[in-house]
Structures are given as C-alpha cells and as structure tokens.
C-alpha cells in the first residue's frame, strides 16, 4: 500500500518536474523580450548577456522546474554575449531555446548530458561574431539607409514624413526579420540545416547589398556638393573652372570626394572619425584659398 502510493506520487512529481515542450510562441516571446531589452543593460563586462538572459527567462522557467537546474541555466545564458539585434539575436535565441530544450530533457531523464555548457557556449560564441558582421552591415548599414535615402528629399522639403517613414519602416522590418530568424534558429537547432547557407538568404543578402550601393550612388549624385569656385580672366574672357569640369564629366568632383574617402577606408580601415577630421581640414583649406 505505502509503496504503491509512494510510486504514484513519485511518478506524479516526476511528471510535474518534466520540462515543458517549447512552441513557436515561446520562442517568439523570447525573441520579443530580447528585442525589447536589447541594449538596455549594455556593459563593458558582459555586453548584451543580460538582455539574452532576460529574453530566455520564460523559456528556461518552462524547461527547468528544479531550482538548481534553473539557476545553472540562468548563469549559462548570462556569460559574455555580444551580437547584432536581429540576425545574431534572432538566430541565437532560437538556437539556444532548442538546445536548452534538449539539455532539459537529458537532465530530466538522467541521460548523459550531450548539450554541455561548453557546447552551448561555443555555439553562441562561434555565431555571435559572424552573425553580427552580416547583420550590422545588412540591417544598420544598408537597409536602414535605403529607407533614409528614400525619405531625405521629404525632410529637405520640411515634411515630418521624412523622419517618420524611415523610423517606422526600419523598426517594423527589424521586428519581423528578428522574429523570422528566431523561429528559423529554433528549427535549425532541431534539424541542423545551415540557414545562412540557404539560397534564399544568400540571394536576399546580395539583392540588398546591390540596392544599398545603388541608393548610395543616387544620394551621392544628388547631395554631395563639391564644386570649384575658381575663376580666371584669360585675355579679357572669364574662364570658369567648374564649367570646364562639367564638360569633361558632370559630377566629377563629388565622385572624386566619395571615392577618395572610400579609398582611404580601403587603405587604413574604417576610421570614420579620422576621415571626418581630414576631410574637414582639406575642405577648409581649399575653401579658404578659393579653389572650392
């Protein structure tokens, strides 16, 4: 009798302690929490790790019913972490969710732990750099500025839409693409298909890169204004340097300026502040002596 009831309570408690099954909804909530807390606790010590922990909290609580296991999981997701919001953050929150799911099952069934702390951390560390490289240059460096490029003429005409459109468009884009990557990352953890190598994502990256370069060309043509104010009087006739330049190649000086800075970056690396100071000095000198 007593052993019987003991058995019942034991299986019941074991059932109670069993890790919950994660759904797409759990992963979406984890991503949204990460998205919301993304850079708030940014510190020199752990960078964005607290934001990742904040995102993963509901998932981990669903998986680990034992306090010690839960605490260990929290600590696991609080180790140094730094990546980009949507590509890195999305894929990694999804991936960590599916890996923690495996880990929780292995712990619960007293199996050998395949999902070790090291394996999980190395997965995170291996991906966070590469994904932030891709994510930063595609999202912040390209997509954001495509929206801004479209809106700049509106702002120049004094319209509020010039500010509202890029903000709303980019915020919506990031939210949607982040959720997409989180779900893909969750599936990827199960099936181990390389999302980044998929043809669709590769094509999208390429298309956005080309469109980004194209829009920068349009912006450079319209808004970089470098022109020569140099004028000579040669045998009684005025000789305006800019007019001659225009007959050679319209828009030569702005193009030379943009390509000059680009060339500086290629040679010296992305030193924006230095390029800014150099260009300012050069322009001041050329303007002061009357060449520009």
């Amino acid at each position: 009798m007593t052993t019987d009831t003991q058995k019942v309570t034991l299986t019941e408690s074991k059932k109670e302690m069993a890790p919950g099954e994660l759904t797409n909804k759990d992963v979406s909530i984890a991503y949204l929490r990460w998205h919301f807390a993304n850079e708030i606790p940014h510190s020199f010590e752990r960078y964005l790790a607290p934001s990742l922990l904040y995102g993963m909290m509901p998932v981990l609580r669903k998986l680990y019913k034992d306090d010690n296991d839960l605490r260990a999981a929290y600590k696991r997701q609080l180790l140094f972490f730094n990546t980009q919001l949507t590509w890195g953050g999305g894929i990694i929150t999804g991936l960590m969710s599916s890996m923690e799911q495996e880990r929780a099952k292995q712990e619960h069934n007293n199996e050998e732990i395949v999902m070790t702390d090291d394996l999980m951390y190395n997965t995170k560390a291996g991906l966070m750099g590469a994904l932030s490289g891709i994510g930063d240059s595609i999202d912040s460096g390209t997509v954001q500025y495509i929206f801004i490029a479209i809106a700049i003429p509106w702002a120049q005409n004094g319209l509020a839409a010039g500010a509202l459109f890029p903000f709303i468009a980019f915020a919506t884009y990031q939210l949607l693409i982040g959720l997409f990557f989180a779900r893909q990352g969750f599936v990827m953890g199960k099936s181990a298909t390389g999302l980044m190598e998929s043809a669709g994502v590769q094509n999208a990256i390429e298309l956005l890169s080309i469109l980004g370069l194209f829009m920068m060309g349009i912006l450079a043509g319209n808004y970089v204004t470098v022109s020569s104010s140099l004028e000579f009087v040669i045998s009684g006739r005025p000789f305006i340097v800019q007019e001659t330049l225009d007959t050679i190649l319209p828009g030569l000086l702005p193009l030379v300026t943009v390509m000059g800075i680009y060339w500086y970056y290629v040679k010296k690396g992305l030193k924006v502040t230095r390029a800014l100071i150099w260009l300012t000095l050069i322009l001041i000198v050329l303007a002061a002596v009357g060449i520009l």
Partner: protein
Amino acid sequence: MDTLTIWQSLIIALWVAAIMSRSFLGGATLTLRFSPLMTGLVVGIVMGDIAGAMVITAAIQLIYMGVFSPGGTMPSEPSIAAAIAVSVALLGDLSPEAAIAVAVPVGLLGSYLYQFRFFLNTFIGKATDRAVESLNHKAISRSIVLYPTIASFILFVPLVFIALFWGAPVIADVIATLEGTVFLHILEVVGGGLAAIGIATTIYVIGRRDYMVFFLLAYFMSVIFRDMGITMVTYAIIGTLVAAIFVLSRNNTAKASSANGTNTVDGSDDDDDDDF
C-alpha cells in the same frame, strides 16, 4: 538672442535620454540613435517649427549616413548632435550647413557619454548576479531593465538640459556673428562635402567591392537626370529591379552550369571576397 524655455529644454533632454537608455521602444531605438531624423522632428515640434527643423535635420542626416556601431564602438551620436544643432540653428536662424558645423563636435562628445553608460551598467551587473543567485525573478528583471534605464536618465537628462538651456543660445550667438564673413563660405563648402563621408562609409560597410559598378551606374544616372525630378521611391524601384535582374541571371547561370554537370559546386561563387 532667443533662448529655449525650461520646458522645451527638458522635453528634448528627456527624449534624448530615452533614446540613449535604449528603453521604452527596445530595438526600435536603434534607428533613433543612428539617425538624427526623429530627434530633429521632436526638436521641431517642441520649438514650433517642424518644417525648418526638418530641412536642417536632412542636412545633418547626410553626414551621418553609414553611422552605426560595428562591434559596439560608434564614432558619433547623431541624435545628441541633432538635439543641440537643430535647436541652435533654429534659435540663431542659421543655414543647414552652419548647423553641421555645430553637430559634428557635439556628436563626438556624445559618444563618450554613451561609453560612460556601459561603465555604469558594469556595476548594475552585480545586482543581476545577486538576483540570479537567489533566483528572484522580479529582481533579475529589475536589474536588467529598470536600473540601467534609471542610470541612463540620471546621466543624460541633466547634461543635455544644461547644454540646451545655457549652451544653445551661446553657440547660436557665436555662429551668427560669423555670418557674412569668409567663414560662411567655408562652412558651406564643408557642409556640402561632408555628406561624402556618410556615403563612403555606407559603401565600405556594404563591403562588396565587386558590385561598385551599381554605385557608379546610379551615380551617373542621378547626375544626368538631376533636373528631371525623379523621386527616391522611383530610384528605389529601379534599383530593386536592377538588383533582381542581376541575382536572377546569376542564379540561372549557376543552374545551367550545374545542369551541364561541369560544375556541381552549387553556389561556388559564394565569394570569399571582401573582408568588410
């Protein structure tokens, strides 16, 4: 010389602190921080001149194209720059080019403040550790979201307020007295040329040296058609089509060659090129 009222200064300071703390709107604050546009609009609303503010903000935006933080370091804080420079320009009735001259140094100073925020958050991290140890879920959330937000507000609100309330009229005065001198010509040249920085930075960040032809194509298109009044939306559509044609035709070539059996390495053109 006009000055900002206490309330105007305070509202702008609170807006900047909200962006810098990265709270309230989460990931959406990314574009608020990297671009001066929304901050310029807020300054315009607060000062009652949206149109004037947007014109100045558009000029500031051009030098901050390509600004974002690869690896977490950012050379400038465009939204702080806009908060001060747009206010100064509206107060002193300055040209957009002159406003740029104000924005650049302010943005550089702002980036140090943002770094200082990381330093403060390092201490708040200890509270997260303690909360995790005692498994107090509410305390963990507080230490991750609430405390860093409060710390950022304490850091940014007073400094931005002081800069606006006492600093802006002084800067506007100094720049206004320079008007009509050779300095104006220099400011205009610098303001027009600095837009190249943002565009070059963006090109470099996109990092596809092999695709530079698309930049050049668009550049000359816009120079040739400048007087035709073609909108950016039209150009964006053309750009998308050009990009799509390129990607499609390349995929077809890859498919054709793999169908021939000569090349089974699908996507071998998955270039290992530019280190960006």
